[in-house]
C-alpha cells in the first residue's frame, strides 16, 4: 500500500497541472495580502478562493486522474493486492498531494500574514474541503466508465455545492419565512461542507453581522467547543461517507 501511495504522489507531483495549481494559489494569496494593507480584508478575498476554486480543482483533477490511470488501476488489480487497499492508496495519494499544493500555495502565506485563530481555521477548512472533494470525486468517477460523463458529473456536483444548494436554501427560507427556521438552519448547514466551512471561518472573522441582529444561535452553537467538535465530525463524515460508498462500488465493479 505504501508503495502505491508513494507512486501516486510522485506521479501527481511531477504533473505540470499540480505545479501550476500551487503557483496559482501562491500568487493569488501573496498578491491579496500584498495589495490589502489590512490582513483581515485579505482573508476575506482569500475566502472566495478557498470556497470556490479549491473544491473545483480538487474535484476535477481527482476525477481526471482516476480516469487517466484506468489502465494502471487494471494492471494493479491483476496483482495480489486487495482492491480496498488499492483504492484507499489512490485516495490517500491524491488527497495528500492536493493538500500539499494547498498548504504551500495558501497555507504558508496565511501562516505568515495572519498567524491567529482566523488563519488556522481557514487553513484547516481549506485542507478539509480539499480532502472532501477528492472523496466526492472518487465517488463520482465510480458512476460511469465514460470519462466525459464522469467529468460532467464532477462539475455538476461542484456547481451544486457552491451555487445551487445556496439557491435552494434561499428559496426555502423565503417560502417558510413565517416559521422559526434558526435551528433548521444549523441542520441545513451540515448538508453542505462548503457552507459549513464558510460559516466556521466567518464566525472567526465577521462576527459582528452574524451574531448581531440575527443568528446569535449560530454563534452559540458553533462558538462553543461542543458545536465545533460536532462541526468537525460532520466534516469528517463528509470524507468518510463518499469514500466508503466509492470503496464499496470499486470492490464490486467489473473493470
Amino acid at each position, binding site marked *: 500500500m505504501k508503495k502505491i501511495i508513494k507512486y501516486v504522489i510522485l506521479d501527481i507531483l511531477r504533473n505540470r497541472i499540480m505545479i501550476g495549481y500551487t503557483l496559482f494559489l501562491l500568487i493569488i494569496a501573496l498578491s491579496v495580502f500584498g495589495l490589502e494593507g*489590512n490582513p483581515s*480584508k485579505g482573508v*476575506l478575498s482569500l*475566502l*472566495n478562493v478557498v*470556497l*470556490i476554486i479549491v473544491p473545483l480543482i480538487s474535484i476535477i483533477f481527482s476525477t481526471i486522474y482516476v480516469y487517466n490511470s484506468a489502465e494502471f488501476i487494471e494492471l494493479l488489480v491483476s496483482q495480489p493486492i486487495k482492491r480496498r487497499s488499492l483504492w484507499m492508496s489512490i485516495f490517500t495519494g491524491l488527497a495528500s498531494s492536493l493538500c500539499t499544493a494547498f498548504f504551500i500555495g495558501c497555507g504558508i502565506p496565511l501562516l505568515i500574514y495572519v498567524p491567529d485563530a482566523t488563519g488556522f481555521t481557514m487553513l484547516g477548512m481549506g485542507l478539509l474541503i480539499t480532502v472532501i472533494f477528492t472523496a466526492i470525486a472518487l465517488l463520482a468517477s465510480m458512476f460511469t466508465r465514460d470519462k466525459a460523463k464522469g467529468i460532467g458529473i464532477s462539475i455538476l456536483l461542484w456547481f451544486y455545492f*457552491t*451555487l445551487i444548494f*445556496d*439557491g435552494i*436554501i*434561499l428559496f426555502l*427560507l*423565503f417560502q417558510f*419565512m413565517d416559521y422559526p*427556521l*434558526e435551528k433548521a*438552519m444549523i441542520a*441545513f*448547514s451540515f448538508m453542505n461542507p*462548503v*457552507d459549513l466551512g*464558510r*460559516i466556521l471561518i*466567518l464566525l472567526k472573522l*465577521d462576527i*459582528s*453581522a*452574524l*451574531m*448581531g*441582529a*440575527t*443568528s*446569535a444561535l*449560530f454563534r452559540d452553537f458553533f462558538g462553543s467547543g461542543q458545536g465545533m467538535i460536532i462541526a468537525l465530525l460532520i466534516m469528517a463524515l463528509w470524507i468518510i461517507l463518499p469514500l466508503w460508498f466509492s470503496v464499496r462500488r470499486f470492490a464490486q465493479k467489473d473493470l
Partner: protein
Amino acid sequence: MKSISKYYHWLTCALIVMITLPAQAKTWRVSPKGKLPSVQQAIDLASPGDTIVVEHGIYKEKTITVTKPLYLLGINYPVLDGERKHEVLAIKSSRVTVEGFLVQHSGYSSYNDIAGIRVYNSRLVTIKNNKLFDTFFGIYTQHAANCTITGNELQSKAVTELNSANGIHCWKSDSMHIVGNKISGHRDGIYFEFVTNSLIEKNYSAGNVRYGLHFMFSHDDKYVENEFFNNGAGVAVMFSRGVTMIGNTFRENWGGAAYGLLLKEISDSRMEHNRFLKNTVGIFMEGTSRMKIVSNDFDNNGWAMRVQASCSENEIVGNNFRGNTFDVGTNGSLVLNTFNGNYWDKYEGYDLDRNGTGDVPYRPVSLYSMIAERNPATMMLFRSFMVSLLDKSEKIIPGATPENLKDERPQMRPFKR
C-alpha cells in the same frame, strides 16, 4: 467723573461684605469618636453656609437629610451606609455641596425610587468626587436646576433590568452639569426625563444592564466626549429635539437588540465627530428628522447605520465608513434623507478628473442587506458565492434596493481626523 467715583464706593462696600461673609461661617467636625458622632446632628446644629467636615468612619444614620445650604466635606471617604433599607442622603435645600463621601448599600424597592444621593426641588447643588457603591438609584435629582454632578464613581451590582435602577437619574431638571463621572453596573448609566439645557461631558458609562445613556423628552441638551462601552443595549435616545452630540465614543455594544446609538423620534439635532466602533448597529434611526450627522467615524460595525423609512430630511455628510459589514440598511423604498460626500471603503468607482470625489454615485444599501432585513435567517448564506452574484447584479441594475439612496459625491480617500 463724579458718578463713577460714587460707583466705586458702592463696589468697595460690596467687596468687603463678600470677603467677610465666609469668615463668619462655622466649621463643624464630625468623627465617630469625637464630640459630634452624627452627621445628621451636625446638620441640625449648623446654620446656613457652614461647613461640615466628616472624618473617616462608618456612619449608619438611616436617611441623612440636608435642609439648609451647607458644605459637606468627607475626609478619606467616610462611609454613609444605608443598611440596604434607606435612602442615604436626601438634599432638600439649594446651594448644598457634597464632596468626598462613600455612599453605599441603599435600600432596594420595586415601588419607591430609593437613591444613594437624592436632590429634591433644589438649585445650585454640587455633588462632586463621591463614590457610590451598591446603591439602587445612584444620584437622583427631581425638579432640580443648575446642579453640578462631577467626578463621581458609581458602581452597582445590577443583574436584571427589573431589580436595578439608574446611575445618574434626572427628572424634570434644568441646566444640569454632569461631568467626568464613571458609571457601571446599573440599569441605565445616565437617565434623563424632562431635562433641558444641560451639559453632559466626559462621562464614562460601561457595563450597564440596559443603556449607557437613555433620555426622553429632554430638549436642547449637549453631550460632549462621553464614552459608552459594552452596555446591554448601547445608548437609546428618544422623543427629543435640539440634541447636540460631539466627540462621543460608542463602542462594543453587542447583542441581538443592541445599538451603538438608537435615535427614535429625534429632531433638529446635530451629531459631529462621534466614533462608532464594533457595534452591532452603529446608529439605528426611527422617525428621526432634520438631523445633521457630520464628520463621524463608523468602523467595524455590523451595520454602520440602519435608517428606517420613517426618517426624513436627515443629512449624512462627510463621515467615514470603514470595515462595516453593511454600510446602510433600510426597510423600505422611500428615501427622504441625503447622503453626500462620505467616504465608503466599499466604493468601487473611479475619479477621472482627480478632484478627490468619485465620478459615479455609491449605493450603500446592498441587496443582501435588504434580504437579511426581511428574513434574518438568510444570514447563513452571508458571503457565499450565490449572494455575491446577487449583489453584483443588483449593483449594476438596481431593482429591489431603493433607487434614491445613494451618495452622489463619494470621497476617494478617508477623511483624516
